[in-house]
């Protein structure tokens, strides 16, 4: 066998298919908002895409690498605060601020991960919640970043440099679409790379993985850094789009749930899971809040809770596995 066989291997063919599907989907999403002028619907699509990207970022650590973080809003908040502070205080353009926010969030993730990765499953999950709560409490009391009152993002003129658009919010759609597309691509790339194989090997059998030279701690650190980065960038984008950030909206435990949930619903450790999950969850959430009353009356929480329990008990592989069933193909290695 030689390299030509490699080019036609099942893995290569599958990955090529995935790229094609992604390309088609991207084309659809580029064109989709153009005929839609209803602000509400456009906003819904933007939020859906944002959470798809965010959850894919979470998925890299929680799904592929198997480290369930229930406090990921910490990195979201860090990215939002760094980027917003740089823009508001330092007049640094948001495109730069976003990347900076992502980098700081990634650094924080590494800092947290370093001592915490030794812990197994449950202990790790608890530690992530504790760290996020600490972040929340600190932000609440830190007046430099606005404390409990938060920060308003002043409008400094419509431009791509400022990433601020008041007249027509359409550019935000493309910004978020770009974000989601990049996170998908990174996940796709990682899945087929050495690191991706390392994660899966460790999840299946740690002892065998080590005997083959897989560096476990190193692979976890890579996962958390990448995940932290994209979560931070997502937070920065959110801050810009909404125009206001405060600890309750960007560092809360509830947000942490919302970041992880699409991946859990759609299928942890799968490429499309977070996207399918977001596409189902976000509209569902909007529907439930408009039909059953404003958010804050608990119904959305009941919905999330029921979904999480349902998926965990009935279909832990997520909605993606249903799609595969429909296609008539058995759910292969995830």
């Amino acid at each position, binding site marked *: 066998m030689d390299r030509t066989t490699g080019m036609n291997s099942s893995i290569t063919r599958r990955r090529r298919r995935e790229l094609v599907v992604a390309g088609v989907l991207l084309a659809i999403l580029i064109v989709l908002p153009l005929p839609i002028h209803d602000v509400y619907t456009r906003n819904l699509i933007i939020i859906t895409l944002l959470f798809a990207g965010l959850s894919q970022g979470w998925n890299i650590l929680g799904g592929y690498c198997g480290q369930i973080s229930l406090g990921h809003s910490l990195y979201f908040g860090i990215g939002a605060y760094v980027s917003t502070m740089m823009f508001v205080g330092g007049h640094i353009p948001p495109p730069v601020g976003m990347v900076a926010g992502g980098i700081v969030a990634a650094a924080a993730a590494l800092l947290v991960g370093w*001592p915490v990765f030794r812990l197994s499953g449950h202990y790790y999950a608890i530690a992530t919640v*504790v760290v996020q709560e600490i972040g929340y409490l600190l932000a609440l009391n830190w007046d430099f970043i606005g404390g409990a009152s938060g920060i308003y993002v002043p409008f400094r003129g419509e431009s791509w440099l400022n990433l601020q658009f008041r007249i027509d919010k359409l550019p935000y759609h493309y910004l978020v679409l770009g974000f989601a597309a990049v996170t998908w691509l990174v996940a796709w790339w990682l899945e087929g790379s050495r690191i991706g194989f390392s994660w899966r090997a460790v999840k299946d059998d740690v002892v065998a993985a080590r005997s083959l030279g897989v560096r476990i701690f190193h692979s976890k650190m890579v996962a958390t850094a990448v995940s932290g980065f994209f979560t931070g960038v997502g937070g920065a984008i959110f801050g810009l789009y909404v125009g206001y950030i405060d600890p309750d909206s960007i560092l809360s435990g509830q947000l942490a749930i919302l970041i992880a949930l699409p991946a859990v619903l759609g299928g942890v450790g799968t490429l499309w899971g977070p996207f399918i999950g977001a596409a189902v969850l976000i509209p569902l959430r909007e529907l439930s809040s408009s039909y059953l009353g404003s958010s804050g009356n608990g119904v*959305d929480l009941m*919905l999330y809770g029921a979904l999480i329990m349902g998926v*965990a*008990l009935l279909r832990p*592989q997520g909605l993606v596995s249903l799609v595969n069933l429909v296609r008539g193909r058995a759910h292969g290695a995830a």
Partner: protein
Amino acid sequence: MALDTILQVVISGLLMGLIYALVAAGLSLIFGLMDVVNFAHGELMMVAMYAVFTLWQMTGLDPFILLPVVAALLFGLGVAIYRLLIARALSVRFNRGMVQIFVTFGLAIFIRGFMQFWYGGEFRSITTTWLANRTANVYGVYLPLPQVAAGVVCLAAFAGLLAISRTEFGRALEATREDREAVALIGIDRDRIFALGWGLGAATVGVAGVMLAGFYYVSPNVGANFALIAYVTVALGGFGSMFGALAAGLLIGEVEAITAQILEPSLKQVGMFAIYLAVLMFRPRGLFGKI
């Protein structure tokens, strides 16, 4: 700082710590038994608080009298949760750790949402009880009686747990905890023990909740807050150790009280979180952990 202020802080920390300890004990019991972290533990406490509040509202009876009723209610709830959800989660072959985390986590969120939906988000409190607003003055230290009563009851509950551990049921619990594979060989119905264990764990945290309702507000988010403290307490004391839960609970209570005094009250939890993380770094099993 004056001596009676110090004493005040220390004693109120101890009293609160006893409640934390009891909440942690229930959590530790369940985890020690079947390796499942009950992420809905705080919400069970909240259910107990709402239950005693509702019963008090309906009957006007003092929470002390309602205590056994609510404890029994929570016991039943714990058994039901095991039978309906946990038993199923344990039998999954694929990704079991993840499933366990998400099942109880999802339950927690669901219960929180339900309480918010049913009762609304306002804070409730039980106002006219036998001990409400009564304080004892001991050598210049003001001891609010509801807190003292809570502390006493929690201690009694720990004594009760100790007594139970000496019974046949308690020994079966211990055996199942030590080797859940082998107990079937000596005639112990593992499934039944798990269910009763969940019931006991839920009842334990229910007792804490009832006593807490005597002086703490009842709201849909109170569960989340106490849950986090419970995890920290159990992780600190060591999963599977009752004594560890007690020791860690008292420690956490003290740290919280002292931190509230030194820093601002809104930052009082930072102290205990910092200690938790520090202990985890050097002793991932906790101070007295068996697992």
